[in-house]
């Protein structure tokens, strides 16, 4: 691999050829604020927050789309650069609701994080603010276009990850919006509710509806696990607060799927708490299933199976193992049938 050497903030660093200036900075732990950049998406160079100063280049180029070059001299933190970034942030904040206290994204909002870092006041520009209707018509995604900073990541996620292109910009200039064609709400569009758009939104414009009010980022622990719904084997993070799963978020390191998920994986976790869950052993007494203690239930099964085995032989007992249970459990089940009962009568619906 060919390597390039460039100077960033007076520090000499080497990066592989083909890296952008942003890559070069991130590889070397030099912080650059970004809103429209995501490693899994193409770069739009739209938010302009990642601008830097590069010797010999006119204006302040955005680092996310500027290729690193041999001998390049980059400044990422000089007053001119910081002032430009601050102005851009002031512009975004001037057109953004300041209801951070009740915003689901609080604590995980990139705009708030940078506004804080750059000392943005929200007082510099006074004027028009968007006032658009909130899209609340579906059970999965809450879309508040007033919080949208038009970074376009959701648009690119929909087209590049999901291959759907449900979302795009509409209108021009200050009136620009993001949404499905003809400004339809999500549930009237062709949206599959994969939620890829939610997973990349840097602000509170797109949030998981079921998680609203359920927990703040700092109260939540994330547990990476494997989706239980189909054979693709997507990984995601279960968000747990106070011993309860409150939702699912993408884990960018998921080996099969990255940030992509489908409607089931992302929004179907509430089945854990279904009313239909069986939460205690049940034994049929006088034709009716009634609650029982574990000891009673297991002893009953042990004695019944033992009896049938003794009377009719081990092959009079069968088991259906489960394509929903873990490998370890399936192993235990077939071992139980083969070693404990003494039969090969174990199968599962391998074919559905």
């Amino acid at each position, binding site marked *: 691999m060919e390597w390039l050497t460039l100077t960033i903030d007076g520090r000499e660093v080497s990066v592989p050829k083909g890296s952008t200036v942003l890559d070069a900075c991130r590889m070397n732990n030099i912080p650059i604020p970004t809103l429209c950049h995501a490693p899994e998406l193409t770069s739009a160079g739209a938010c302009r927050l990642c601008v830097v100063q590069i010797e010999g280049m006119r204006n302040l180029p955005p680092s996310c789309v500027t290729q690193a070059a041999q001998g390049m001299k980059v400044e990422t933190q000089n007053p001119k650069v910081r002032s*430009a970034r601050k*102005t851009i942030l002031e512009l975004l904040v001037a057109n953004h609701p300041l209801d951070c206290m009740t915003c689901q994204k609080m604590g995980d909002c990139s705009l708030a994080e940078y506004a804080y870092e750059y000392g943005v006041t929200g007082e510099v520009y006074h004027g028009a603010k968007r006032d658009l209707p909130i899209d609340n018509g579906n059970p999965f995604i809450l879309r508040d276009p007033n919080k949208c900073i038009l970074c376009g990541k959701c648009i690119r996620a929909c087209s590049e990850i999901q291959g759907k292109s449900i979302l795009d910009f509409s209108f021009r200039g200050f009136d*620009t919006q993001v949404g499905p064609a003809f400004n339809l709400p999500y549930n009237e569009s062709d949206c599959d509710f994969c939620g890829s758009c939610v997973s990349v939104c840097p602000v509170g414009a797109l949030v998981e509806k079921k998680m609203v009010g359920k927990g703040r980022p700092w109260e939540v622990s994330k547990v990476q696990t494997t989706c239980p719904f189909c054979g693709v084997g997507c990984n995601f993070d279960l968000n747990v607060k106070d011993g309860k799963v409150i939702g699912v978020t993408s884990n960018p390191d998921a080996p099969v799927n990255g940030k992509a998920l489908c409607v089931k994986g992302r929004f179907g976790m509430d089945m854990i708490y279904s009313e239909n869950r069986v939460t205690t052993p049940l034994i049929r007494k006088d034709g009716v299933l009634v609650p029982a203690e574990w000891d009673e239930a297991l002893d009953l099964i042990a004695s019944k199976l033992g009896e049938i085995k003794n009377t009719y032989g081990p092959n009079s007992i069968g088991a259906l193992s489960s394509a929903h249970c873990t490998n370890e459990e399936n192993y235990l089940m077939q071992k139980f049938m083969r070693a404990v009962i003494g039969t090969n009568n174990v199968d599962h619906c391998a074919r559905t």
Partner: protein
Amino acid sequence: MAENQRILVCAGTGCASSGALPIIDILIDEIKRQGLEETVSVVGTGCQGFCEKGPTLVIEPQQILYTRVKGEDVAEIIEQELVKGERVERLLLVDQETQKPVSSMADINFFAKQHRIVLHNCGVIDPKKIEDYTAREGYKAIEKALKEMSPEDALEEVKKSGLRGRGGAGFPTGLKWGFCRATPSDKKYIICNADEGDPGAFMDRSVLEGDPHSVIEGMLIGAYAIGADEGYIYCRAEYPLAIKHLGIAIKQAEEAGYLGDNILGSGFNFHLKVFEGAGAFVCGEETALMASIEGKRGMPRVRPPFPAVSGLWGKPTNVNNVETWSNVPHILRKGAEWYTQFGTEKSKGTKIFALTGKVNNTGLVEVPMGTTLREIIFDIGDGIQGGKKFKAVQIGGPSGGCLPEDMLDLAVDYDTLTQAGAMVGSGGLVIMDETTCMVDIARYFLNFTKKESCGKCTPCREGTTRMYEILDRITKGEGKEEDLDTLENLALTIKETSLCALGQSAPNPILATLKYFRHEYEAHIRDHKCPAHNCSALLSYTIDAEKCKMCSLCAKNCPVNCITGDKKTNTPYVIDEDKCIKCGTCMDKCKFGAVTRA
């Protein structure tokens, strides 16, 4: 008259809307009636340039110009000119200095001081006839290229000519072609950018309407030099006549074997289509334009990759504007050396300007690069309307800068104007006089750019609106002292951080007016006064009781009935300032100069 004569009637969009088309019909009838059809022909041409005086017509070969011609003048013109060989004096142009009529185009500054290369055929030929074009050396350049030159030779000739892009940025055309030529690909495109969107600019429209074949021939040469076999002309849908003439011209060129496969037996193929734009200003930006052709939302994308590497549908693509393409046949036919005699060291050739605003001769003019603004405005444009005082010239479209009087002797070329805070841009020249408020002008242009911002990048999308809002407040007398710093800081950030040229140049009207007319801003903010007496919120009208004759004309015409007084009781008229909407009607109506504005 023994000699054959032609009557060239301007049928460009400007003159057509002033009633030129019926004149052509009447002329033809009248000539028939007089039995002159053997010796006199009538031609509806493209724009002759003198829009202010339209409809115009020219009698050839004498080159006699008639202005503001009406249908009822036709019989007289035929009778006098064609039968008697005399002038119809009342329809001739009056020289502002001598106040005498001038008949010959050679004696009219508007024409005499121009040098027409691109407009060589405009206003002279019938743009709907390929034979008119070929009769004036048309398609000789592509013939020469295909028969005598390799693609490299053609490219080299354009490089040597020093031609730079006429769309605004002024990038060397040959160099641009070379990049595209150098990118290996199975398919390349060339595009003609005819999405002329600057308010007041109509250079490209005029060329397309008046000489469409020159654009096609330029593109043929470009395609040959670059190695492209397909091209698009992206023309805004608001130019129906241009689109019509292009359609006719493409069909004729195909039938004549100049477009299609195996052109002139050379084995070179080139197919050309017209694509109608949907009215977004930003689609004049080449990457947005290509997105639009691809059927996507017209939004610019970051460069690199440049279109020469990855353009239309990911293929190497070269985009030039109408005027640039139209220069090319002349360069090939007459040679780079000939071309370089015009212009300055770094800006070769000529430039067409659309002269508009408070100038006497509004219209379309082509001058060598390096001509001074003063020559264009005062010699060709014949100075300021109504004898008022020149204040500024806005050059380069909505994103250009406003230059004050002391910069009138600047030579117009790419580098000089950029240094001065303006730009050649596509070539709009808007002349302003003392009644123009420079804050309001900045506000006007920002209103345009904020509406036309595509919304992709933050600084342009949000920033142009904030700049507009600040300017709007200032013109209403609600400006604050710190607004100027905020405005300047915002303008510089937008200039340095926006994605495309639209955003990067959107603050120019503000930066230039802040630089040259800062006192006007300060007057609005500190004194709540508009020095040009233009910003209505800052005006106050009063009636001088001494001068008031109590005729009541002001009160009768006041639309909001805010003027009271009574002759019977000898009470002079008074304006109620709370109710006054500052329309100025009272001042216009007063015969005694009793109403004053401050």
